[in-house]
């Protein structure tokens, strides 16, 4: 980012300074510069003023091409096998499913530090945008569709995550805590979640799906298989069923 910024400053700062300087030097009341009322072209200046932006944008363009590919949010991060997490946007909270660990949480996302995280993201409601600003960029969450994001925390700590895309009355409070912890702490956290006697099922899902603001953290010790995929798929049917336990979209 700073590279691009500095490169542009090379042009922007002189333009601002020149504007002010010309305004002062060629002022009608007492200005000193020459007056050439009919001078309106100069091939050298023309070539330069087309040339400078072209060269600059040319440099930026190659840089953009590289960076966009290097930092593609869909690109898996190098290193160990990633921790898979599935995020579902609800009104106005986030449900996180850990399919390999068979647990789920509401509004709390814990993970081991240094571990690549691979997210699949969707929405049960209006369009949301999933972001943990301290870790990286955002990606939309859309009903009936799956988007992806790969993140990794390099330090231990508590971060804020949130929905960035306005989605209704509870939008302002639609935040969650992202906890980056040591492997030991994570294991402890995991067994704590597993102790919960709530299970993610039709009834509990219907319950957390009810619109609510500043929803408290909740733990679910089990999750039905393929839960996330079914939530994505159920919108694709033509039936007018808005009830979470639709089976139709299984395959």
């Amino acid at each position: 980012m700073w590279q691009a910024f500095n490169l542009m400053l090379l042009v922007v700062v002189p333009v601002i300074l020149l504007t002010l300087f010309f305004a002062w030097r060629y002022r009608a009341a007492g200005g000193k510069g020459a007056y050439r009322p009919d001078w309106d072209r100069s091939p050298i200046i023309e070539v330069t003023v087309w040339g400078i932006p072209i060269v600059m944008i040319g440099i930026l363009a190659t840089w953009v091409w590289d960076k966009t590919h290097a930092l593609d949010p869909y690109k898996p991060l190098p290193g160990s096998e990633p921790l898979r997490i599935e995020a579902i946007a609800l009104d106005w909270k986030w449900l996180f499913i850990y399919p390999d660990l068979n647990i789920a949480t509401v509004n709390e996302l814990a993970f081991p530090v240094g571990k690549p995280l691979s997210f699949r993201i969707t929405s049960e409601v209006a369009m949301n945008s999933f972001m943990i600003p301290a870790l990286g960029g955002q990606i939309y969450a859309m009903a009936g569709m799956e988007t992806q994001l790969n993140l990794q925390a390099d330090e231990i700590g508590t971060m804020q995550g949130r929905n960035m895309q306005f989605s209704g009355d509870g939008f302002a409070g639609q935040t969650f805590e992202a906890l980056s912890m040591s492997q030991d702490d994570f294991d402890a956290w995991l067994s704590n979640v597993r102790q919960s006697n709530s299970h993610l099922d039709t009834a509990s899902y219907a319950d957390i799906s009810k619109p609510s603001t500043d929803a408290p953290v909740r733990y679910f010790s089990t999750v039905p298989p393929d839960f996330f995929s079914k939530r994505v798929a159920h919108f694709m049917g033509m039936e007018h069923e808005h009830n979470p336990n639709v089976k139709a979209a299984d395959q």
Partner: protein
Amino acid sequence: MTENASLLLGRLGLDALPFYSWVAFSGALVTLAGGVGFLVLVTWLGQWRALWTGWLTSVDHKRIGIMYIVLALVMLVRGFVDAIMMRLQQAMSYNREGYLPPEHFEQIFSSHGTIMIFFMAMPFMTGLLNYIIPLQIGARDVAFPVLNAISFWLTFAGAGLMLISLVIGKFSTAGWTGYPPYSGVEFTPGVGVDYWIWSILVSGVGTTMTGINFVVTILRKRAPGMLLMRMPLFTWTGLCSSILIIFAFPALTVSTTMLALDRTLGMHFFTNDGGGNVMNYMNLFWIWGHPEVYILILPAFGIFSEVVATFSSKRLFGYPSLVYATAVIAVLSFTVWLHHFFTMGAGANVNAIFGIATMVIAVPTGVKVFDWLFTMFRGRIRFEPPMLFTIGFMCLFVIGGMSGVLLAIPPINYSTHNTTFLVAHFHNMIIPGVLFGYLAGYMYWFPKAFGFQLDRVWGARSFWFWMIGFLLAFMPLYALGLMGMPRRLETYGNPEWQPLLIVAFVGACLILMGIISLVMQLWVSVKNRKALVDQTGDPWDGRTLEWSMPSPPPIWNFDNVPVVSSRDAFHEAKLSGIPLPAAEEDSPLSVPKNSVMGPCMGVAGMCIGFGAVWYIWWLAFAGLAIAVAAIIGRSFVQSTENDVSFKRGATTT
């Protein structure tokens, strides 16, 4: 459409009145008072007839232009009230509610954005095009004067619907972009989104016709010798902008119509279920939306070009470059819409290509800035208010351009999208770029339209308030955006944000002073109009044809249409002392007659819109019937022109 809709009143009931909150109630009261006050004033002054024949039914492009600009200035105030309310809310809502509940805050950002874009900037631009372009190209009117009046009245009807929503019912909470599925009935069942849809649909039809009108006017009605490459830059940018309107607005009409079908008839274009796809809406919306920002800013570039040449007392530097740059921008503006949703999950190739395409637009834009810079070089610069706004623009705009390029870099966009960084960026383009341009145009051409100049001191004060106010109001938002503050946020829990938001509020207060200075400027100038009178018709030592006629111009503009033999022909004629030769004309001097088509279509548009919002279907059909009847009726009008040859040579209307 089941919620106990009655045949007579649709879903309109007493609960639509704003008794639910004092903020809403005061807003409604001010709106009502404004409307009633206006009616009372006209009656009091006994001016109904003059208003009707002189303005409401006028098809004179100059009168229509002025009405557009009056509408724009009123809506600027209305939109600004929204803005400062949001600033106040965010300045105080750290860890608490503030004074606006979420739903109200949502209506305010939605109406602010909608008003500023559709009912402030668009009418301001159209008004300036209307007043100036025929004068600049040596035409007696636009190509289709009655259509022009209809366009105005449809815009007015759209704005009227917006204002009505303040009193009856509520406005949309879905932002100025109205993204589904949130804007669908499932999430926003009330009338708000319907108000939004119908006000921009009705005015959008008017805008489309304006685009057609001005393309034909500029291509067909130029004075002899006014070759394309001799046209003033404001006319050039007006042409490009009108072409963009013709190609872009249908996309908006289609996307909002489809949204209306989803909402009203239960279709599934953009719903979550039933096979709908929200991504189609976003694509359609931004295929209009990105060109729209160039529709707004190109004419402002044109104004800056005129102003910088006039007040530097110098020929415009690099005219061909500026023309080609404008045309290139116009074409490229259709190739970048995807940069509004890099975060939708498209692949790296797609995002990179659209990012680069976006940056390419920076090239012709940069060229323009340099050309203005070299117009000032070796000139004799007079710091009249329009020139102050131009210099302010040049300094601020490059900053906005820089943040725009940063946003166009997908990996940066992932972090800054949907944050106040984006809000700062587009205000940085739209206030110094668009609004400063229009204000410069307003102060530059005001003496032409009214025969006296605007007060310089209040003009300069307004400029400084706007300039400093802008910096204070929006620079903090860049920082907040980088700190991760989302846009459209009603409350927040981050203590680091509050000081910056308070600075932004102070900035908005300075902008308020800038707006008050504009009002003062008008007031003082009207009072001193004798002293400020413009006798020559050419108060600034202008270069283009509009300065060759008296101020204000006669209704037929040119006693004799001039023959043009060069760019800046009027300026050269002044230097050489030889007036421009008169063209031979084969028809008598005539002007189009007044027509009630405009007001009829305005009423029709308002009925259709209001009826459709509230499901009062008889009213919507009545509106449609009025429109059809007016068109049929018009076809029976035989005599549409008044011969005014006998008045030729008289210098006042």
